[in-house]
């Protein structure tokens, strides 16, 4: 089982080539990406500015990842989260979950995101367009 955690400055780049297929036993790889939407509460948005309380955010991401990976018997769980400014249309969050079969990966993905949104100290502040 492998857990990869990274909080990076700015938007996330393309998916790393090494991010998937932990072993030949892996039969399912599921990826979720969070993308900054163009509108927030009905208003046009320019970007989101993410703030993370470190190292607590890093530690909780890892703890949740390890707990979920163990519970669902995952081969690998990789998560990236932005901090700082991420413009509309850019990726601020990516989660890749790998397991032998799809059910484990899909269930693990939902559970991880629910816990992230409940516990991990990361905040976002809307950045409005300049008029």
């Amino acid at each position, binding site marked *: 089982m492998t857990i990869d955690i990274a909080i990076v400055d700015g938007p996330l780049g393309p998916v790393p080539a090494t991010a998937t297929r932990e072993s030949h036993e892996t039969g399912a790889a599921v990826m979720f990406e969070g993308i900054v939407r163009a509108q927030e509460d009905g208003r046009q948005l320019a970007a989101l500015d993410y*703030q993370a*309380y470190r190292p*607590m955010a890093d530690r909780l991401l890892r703890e949740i990842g390890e707990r979920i990976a163990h519970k669902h018997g995952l081969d690998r769980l990789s998560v990236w*989260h932005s901090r700082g400014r991420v413009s509309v249309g850019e990726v601020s969050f990516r989660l890749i979950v790998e397991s032998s079969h799809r059910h484990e990966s899909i269930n693990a993905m939902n559970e991880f995101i629910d816990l992230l949104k*409940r516990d*991990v*100290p990361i*905040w*976002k502040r809307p950045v409005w367009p300049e008029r």
Partner: protein
Amino acid sequence: MRVTVLLFGSEATAVGRDSVTVEISGPITGAELREHLNEHWPALRPMLPSARFAVNHAFAAPDQVIRATDEIALIGLVGGG
């Protein structure tokens, strides 16, 4: 003894700063610290019921004793993902 509480997100916005300081007479629990903040920082009152304390980068139980040497953060509703 002075305790500094780090603030983030809407809590920091509400008081216009990224930390607040509370004067206490000795070690206190998280529940007591919450009461201090409620009394001395009115702008935080709407957020306090849903906020949690982190002590040294881990969520703290309400009865956990907090000391001046601890790193204390008020963690309101988070918004990652």
